[in-house]
């Protein structure tokens, strides 16, 4: 009778211990996986977000002309997000950003971008690259 009672007590303790250990492992696993999942979700979200922003960025070079004060680009942003010029090439030659004003192209606005360069007579291929990686091209006759 005495032996049976001790066996019953150790049985309860062992069951409780086992359950506690299992639940602890389960909780640790849950927290780890949950954090991992949240992290992956935010990475995935930012990837999609940048892809969508790139898709929503729409810019057109309405007109380009050159006079003694430099090159002028009339750029209209017809997309859904503001754009920013990060690179400008004239015949595949990169122009320094300090010579370009302004660099920002707000949504639904016509922006006159002035490029402080001097060009000889001829036809030039102008290419602008936005911060989201989209590129827009035009030709200008000097």
């Amino acid at each position, binding site marked *: 009778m005495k032996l049976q009672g001790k066996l019953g007590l150790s049985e309860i303790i062992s069951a409780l211990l086992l359950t506690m250990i*299992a639940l602890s492992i389960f909780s640790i696993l849950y927290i780890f996986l949950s954090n991992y*999942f949240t992290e992956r979700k935010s990475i995935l979200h930012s990837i999609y977000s940048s*892809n*969508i922003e790139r898709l*929503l960025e729409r810019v*057109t070079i309405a007109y380009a002309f050159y006079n003694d004060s430099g090159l002028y680009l*009339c750029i209209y942003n*017809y997309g*859904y997000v503001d754009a920013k010029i990060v690179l400008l090439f004239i015949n595949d030659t990169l122009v320094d950003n300090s010579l370009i004003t302004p660099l920002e192209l707000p949504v639904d606005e016509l922006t*006159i971008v002035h490029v402080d360069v001097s060009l000889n007579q001829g036809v030039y291929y102008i290419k602008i690259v936005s911060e989201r990686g989209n590129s827009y091209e035009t030709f200008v006759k000097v």
Partner: protein
Amino acid sequence: MKHLLRYRGYKRKAQASLMVVLLIILATSLFISMIYVAYELTSWYESEKQKISQLEVERLEENIIIEKIGQGIGSIHLNITNVGSVPVLIRYAIVVYVKDAELVMAYDELNVYINVGEELYNVKVDIPPPTNLKYIMLVTSRGRVFIKVVETV
């Protein structure tokens, strides 16, 4: 004693089963969440893609003709016809002219809405008529540019 050992065995099995069930619930919930997130992001991307495709299709369907340019006092007047298949919002007018043997441009915000097949007369562009007017360009809200060459350079 024999019964006790058998009871212990069942209890261990029950505990193990409980843990397995919990782990399966965890794995399933994570899997379902991942599927849901992937579906949500893909739907978002697809809806935005659809929006842009619609814009590009409408952009291609835009077509307006600048029929006549009149020069008033302190402004230029245009007759415009929408010959495309979508209504058009004309956002800007760009005027290019020659001043001191150099190309110069000026622009005005118009915000003129023109329906399909509609003709608008005397649309006012608040730019003083230059003497050597070369081109007039109209920029639409969908980014199309329609040009009228006034004088060949």
